[in-house]
């Protein structure tokens, strides 16, 4: 089925550990995005990518790393997790153009102890 898949759905880890969240889309959308959702803050953009090997920072990029070697995959890595990175993370994809709908995955709930 076409769509956007995030894995894992739930993750618990400890401070200082490295953790990678995966995102895979089957639409061949050129744009992909990573957001974090926190109460009172809505959705905040972490990183986005316009195409394979092209990435750029969003509003809250500190402590995160992304890569995009293939159009369909856009992993997000927390190199040394901190408690402040406990959140729900959403991946999205879209066609080019600022008025194109973004299609979201169902999120990864990450807890850092």
């Amino acid at each position, binding site marked *: 089925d076409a769509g956007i898949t995030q894995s894992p759905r739930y993750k618990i880890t400890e401070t200082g550990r490295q953790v990678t969240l995966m995102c895979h889309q089957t639409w061949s959308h050129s744009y992909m*995005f990573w957001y974090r959702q926190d109460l009172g803050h809505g959705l905040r953009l972490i990183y986005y990518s316009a195409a394979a090997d092209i990435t750029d920072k969003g509003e809250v990029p500190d402590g995160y790393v992304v890569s995009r070697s293939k159009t369909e995959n856009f992993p997000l890595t927390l190199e040394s997790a901190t408690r402040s990175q406990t959140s729900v993370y959403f991946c999205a994809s879209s066609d080019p153009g*600022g008025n194109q709908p973004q299609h979201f*995955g169902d999120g990864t709930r990450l807890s850092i102890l």
Partner: protein
Amino acid sequence: QQQVKQSPQSLIVQKGGIPIINCAYENTAFDYFPWYQQFPGKGPALLIAIRPDVSEKKEGRFTISFNKSAKQFSLHIMDSQPGDSATYFCAASTSNFGNEKLTFGTGTRLTIIP
């Protein structure tokens, strides 16, 4: 800096009532204003969107009203149903290529009571 301010944070409405969610923006370059609907455990999904060349857009029971001079837009849900209970996010962007980032409001948790 919050470029899109959304209110209220939460809203409880009786079935059949008309919940109204308001958003205000600062950046006059914004020219595309979508609303996203999010159910628990799911990602947001596009509900309805408007461009500033019209003052109102309707899709089924959902209506966006837009006031360009006041830099405000709002979502109205007619004949609301318990199934409309969700979190709603307004957003804004510029619609030209190379500006695909959306700026989201902080969300409104809507509960429709039977």
